[in-house]
């Protein structure tokens, strides 16, 4: 089946920063976590796929259409939850529905009212009086009210308290139960991804480090702990090493090779997404 979204060879220079050869694809009906440190190029990539920033090279297709030449048609089928509120602060919640209804071809006012009720959003309250989490839920309600097939979320859970975050993630998981929909979820809170993502794409310094199925990713990496005396033998099999006074902690994809090593035993643990990101960037030079 054709992916709902695909990027290949995308390049963009913005002053000192550059996206280089960015490419990944998102299958229909799945959630992709798009992760990377601040300034890695997540938002620029999302802006390119929404047609807000022009790429210098490469190809971006959404719903099989070229993102640059079919911007309005594509955005008619996309919902968004941005890291900050983008709705007019002086508008009441219901007025946001009235406003958006004028733009989307498939806007369903009844669905909007149902979603407001489901998310416990007061229709008569002004946007400026909503909490950060409520504003994120409003954006999601709007996305669901025009039948968005792809929902793009840029740091939707940053700044939310744990209860709101959990609630937001539950809603996103429910959203995806409709298999027509897909979610591209940019975040630096990797624990969120462990709960809901099917795919993880990691961008660092403008380049894609990996883009793969989350379960395969977690299965392929292992976190290694050992004493100082075991490091020399293990080092060729390690991707990133953090040395400390009593030994080292590292990341590896060579589980069997590490098990076969003679010498002091090493502790091999399941790596989290956070471990994979940190060790493959911050400590990668120590290899």
């Amino acid at each position, binding site marked *: 089946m054709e992916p709902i979204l695909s990027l290949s060879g995308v390049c963009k220079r*913005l002053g000192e920063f550059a996206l280089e050869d960015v490419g990944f694809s998102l299958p229909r009906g799945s959630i992709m976590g798009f992760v990377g440190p601040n300034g890695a190029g997540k938002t620029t990539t999302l*802006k390119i796929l*929404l047609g*807000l*920033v*022009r790429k210098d090279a490469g190809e971006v297709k959404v719903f099989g259409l070229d993102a640059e030449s079919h*911007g*309005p*048609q*594509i*955005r*008619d089928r*996309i919902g*968004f939850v*941005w890291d*900050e*509120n*983008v*709705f*007019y*602060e*002086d*508008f009441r919640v219901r*007025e946001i529905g009235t*406003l*958006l209804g*004028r*733009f*989307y*071809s498939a806007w369903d006012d009844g669905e909007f009212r149902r979603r407001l009720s489901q998310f416990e959003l007061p229709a008569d309250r002004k946007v400026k009086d909503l909490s950060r989490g409520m504003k994120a839920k409003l954006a999601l309600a709007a996305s669901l009210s025009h039948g968005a097939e792809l929902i793009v979320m840029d740091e939707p859970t940053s700044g939310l308290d744990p209860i709101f975050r959990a609630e937001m993630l539950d809603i996103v998981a429910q959203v995806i139960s409709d298999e027509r929909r897909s979610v591209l979820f940019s975040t630096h809170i990797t624990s969120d991804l462990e709960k809901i993502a099917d795919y993880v794409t990691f961008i660092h310094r403008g380049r894609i480090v990996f883009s793969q199925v989350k379960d395969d990713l977690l299965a392929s990496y292992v976190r290694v702990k050992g004493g100082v005396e075991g490091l020399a033998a293990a080092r060729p099999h390690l991707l990133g090493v953090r040395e400390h006074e009593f030994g080292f902690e590292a990341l590896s994809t060579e589980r069997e090779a590490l098990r076969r090593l003679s010498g002091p035993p090493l502790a091999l643990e399941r790596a989290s997404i956070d471990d994979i990101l940190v060790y493959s960037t911050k400590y990668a030079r120590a290899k």
Partner: protein
Amino acid sequence: MVRALVVKDLMILRHRLFYSLILVALAVAPMPHEGKRGLLGALFTHMVVTAFLTQAALLEEQSRGHVLVSLLPVGRRDVVQARYLLLGGLAAATATLYTGPIAAIAPFVPAPIPASTVLLWWLWAATLTMLMWSISLPVVFRWGVTRSQILLNSLMFIPFLVLMLLSRWFGAGIQSLARQGLFSSLPAGLGGLAVAVILAWVSSVVSTRLYTRRDL
């Protein structure tokens, strides 16, 4: 889509629109009834529309509304067209607000004002506003509201400054033109508006080119 964008701008402006209408009504009454009234009215209309459009743009940017607009299923060309339509509409509406009450009382004042004079004032008011904004909007579309803020703030006072300088440097020539009836003839007023409309069209083409190439 252009219509939806114009409605959006009017929804954003509605509260300020209400207060500004009261301001227009209050300001029209004490204006002098001599010949300078047309000039004062034109400048005043220009200031009100400038304040409106600047407010709309600032409110939009403060609310990150420009991000919202860029995420909606509208093309950049539509966004530019909508802003120019709003400009034209506001220029016409404010000029009407200014001249409407005058037209209503014109036959009853001690020195009745001919309808053609009121129409001429309307034309100058709309023309001045459209001319100034036709020059400014491409700058706004290229660099955004925040970076164009100095220009927008000074826009209200530029016509005063220009008129002051013109009268100082070319006072005799202007008076000679005035004596020949250039500023009081209806064809000249219509010609001025036609020039303003053409300039607005050229300006919108330039704005579209600049805005479609801009990264948001």
